[in-house]
């Protein structure tokens, strides 16, 4: 076990843990936001740069600070490391800049975007972004395309986190999904003429931090904050069958995987559960689901808050930061 200090909070973690994982063990405000890192996808992270932190002391042996801000998701901790996240003005400045870059070509079409309300980019820009836009150039535009018959790709909204690429690479057996071109015109695409047909492909919707990949069976049906997330399960021969069913009254509007407080899927679910089973009779409803993360949904008081672990809505957290 090695000792690390993050924003003056000491924590003991196992060797080889990254700064981000160590911060997640502390929880709460010190956790840097992560748009591209996904603990279940090997090799992900390091790309979006929102999780940059300052290492004020490299280790107990070598107390020199690291010369640049480092990506907390991919930098392993060392014994005696001192990390500054929100306590460093440099980090806050850099994060503001990164949000600006991410939003530079983002269409900001939240009013018509299915992800609105559970969007990492929304949370991020609300927490760290600027109030005004500084660019007056036209934003990048791509046509909306279908990836298979159930998934829609809005490349305009994509922040190129590569999560879906890693997913397609690692969890489905045939890779037909990747990035074309380079630089500011690079785009996510599937192999020409080939839709993603794998039976787990629907999970790319859940790993997508923004509204770039959306569920065609749910598109424009309802805003997510009007729906009640319920834990539900069924006997499934392909996956575990444990899902979150998003309901309005007695109607199931959509099925997603269950996500933890960091927005990561607990267990990936199959396409059959996700897209085909929309009847109440298909599922055994266990009860309401706690949304432990900062989001519009958790701010919507449809559920009595009993647990201490529920984080206050982001607004409360961030007033302190500024």
């Amino acid at each position, binding site marked *: 076990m090695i000792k690390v200090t993050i924003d003056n909070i000491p924590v003991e973690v196992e060797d080889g843990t990254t700064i981000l994982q160590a911060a997640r063990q502390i929880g709460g405000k010190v956790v840097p936001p992560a748009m591209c890192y996904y603990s279940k996808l090997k090799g992900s*992270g*390091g*790309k*979006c*740069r929102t999780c*940059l932190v300052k290492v004020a002391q490299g280790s107990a042996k070598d107390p020199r600070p690291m010369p*640049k*801000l480092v*990506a907390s998701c*991919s*930098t*392993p901790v060392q014994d005696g490391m001192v990390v500054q996240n929100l306590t460093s003005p440099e980090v806050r400045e*850099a994060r503001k*800049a*990164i949000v*600006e*870059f*991410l939003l*530079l*070509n983002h269409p900001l079409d939240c009013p018509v975007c299915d992800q609105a309300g559970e969007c990492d980019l929304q949370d991020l820009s609300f927490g760290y972004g600027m109030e005004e836009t*500084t*660019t007056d*150039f036209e934003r990048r535009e791509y046509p909306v395309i279908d990836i298979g018959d159930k998934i829609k790709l809005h490349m305009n909204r994509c*922040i*190129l986190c*590569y999560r879906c690429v890693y997913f397609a690479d690692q969890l489905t057996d045939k890779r037909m999904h*990747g*990035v074309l*071109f*380079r*630089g*500011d*015109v*690079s785009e996510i695409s599937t192999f020409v003429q080939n839709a993603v047909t794998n039976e787990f492909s629907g999970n790319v919707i859940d790993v997508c931090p923004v509204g770039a990949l959306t569920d065609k069976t749910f598109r424009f049906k309802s805003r997510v904050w009007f729906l009640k997330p319920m834990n539900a399960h069924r006997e499934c021969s392909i996956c575990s069958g444990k899902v979150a069913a998003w309901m309005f009254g007695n109607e199931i509007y959509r099925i997603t995987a269950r996500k933890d407080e960091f927005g990561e899927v607990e267990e990936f679910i199959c396409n059959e559960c996700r897209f085909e089973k929309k009847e109440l009779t298909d599922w055994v409803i266990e009860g309401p689901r706690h949304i432990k993360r900062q989001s519009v949904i958790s701010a919507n008081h449809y559920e009595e808050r009993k647990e201490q672990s529920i984080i206050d809505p982001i607004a409360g957290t961030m007033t302190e930061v500024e």
Partner: protein
Amino acid sequence: MGRKLLLANIDVPGIRGFDAYRAHGGYAAVEKALRGMSVSEVSAEVNRSGLRGRGGAGFPTGLKWSFLDRKSDKPRYLVCNADESEPGTFKDRYLMHHLPHLLIEGLIISSYALGVNTCYIYIRGEFKYIVGILERAIREAHQHGFLGENILGTGFSLNIYVHPGAGAYICGEETALLESLEGKRGNPRIKPPFPAFKGLYGCPTVVNNVETLATVVPIINMGGDEYARIGRGKSTGTKLISASGNINNPGVFEIEMGLPVEDFIYAPEYCGGIANEKYLKAVIPGGSSVPILPADLMLNTAKGEKRLMTYESLADGDFVSGTMLGSGGFIVYDEDQCIVRNTLNLTHFYRHESCGQCSPCREGTSWMEKVLYRLEHGEGKMSDIDLLVRVAKNIEGNTICPLGDAAAWPVASAIRHFRGEFEYHVKHPEVVKNVHHGALKIEKESLIPDSGTGVNYW
């Protein structure tokens, strides 16, 4: 005229072939190293020579080699970075074109020192004709027993493979190069792990520039201490400089480190002065990604000392009044050149070559290009100049690989030293719309950069 270690025999007819190269002392260093020196002795010579990486960063080669994980039971690889794509730099192309055997000799010695049996030359896709030259040289070396199994009967085996890239600047970054070599998309890897532990195919790997590896040959021939005597301070030996721009003799020159910049620009054996009897305006001394410096700061440091062609002297004053030696792409601008246009050109390059993996570089480079395009075409606003400074600052240091820094530095330095010219573009949109070169000359007097050194080259 300084000593020539790499390009001494460049004018010998047929030096590209094995026979002429061998007749002029070629492969003597291989014989010396493999027959008479132990592995650690070769590394020690390189260490003593103070050789620093010639690809741009100037990292000590001996130190880089010492990081290689020798305890691992996996095979080790040496990769030669021949993906020379920096605008203004063309020394490696010249070296490989004319002296392919020098590189191969350097590769054999370096592989021996590193305990490597497989070596890759990752060459830029546009250098297609050089692939043939290198492969022919490799074939010749095989025929004469300098490559393959049991070289010179010492039991050491080495194979060299040439792998052409598909023409991406980003693949010159060592981890992107390894990705590309593995057949993947050329995106830089997240470090750590460093290539010395997990490089090509997950095995310990050393990536060195062409010139660095070629320089190992004279180091072994003359000894590391002798080599370190050339040059000045921590910048030892000789360096290839590819000079281009408004000079009388553009081309590749081998200089001894420590040559004053003024001599390099004006001496007839080097650049030979500014072409068409014009004045020197600015210089980018190390390839397009290092900061541009105006004439007075280029020739003398802010302290008033003569600026020399060394890593330290060029970096004197950090980025406020200094720059970097980088890869030695020496680009000279005369009084007629428009800095805004030139910066736009460079930024266009970085926008085009950004891999698009991390957000600051992907979005920032294209943003800077759009703003600069607007400025250059007389549609800019005064606030655009500060916007550029801010965007450049936000990219710098926040990216995965140094391409972000490389894109930000030229913009930041151009505005730092030539802000007047940017403001001129905003104030006189009609002029800059029609005049693309020398718009500055119209109001030259008011735009002379004042660095306080009292030297005026205008």
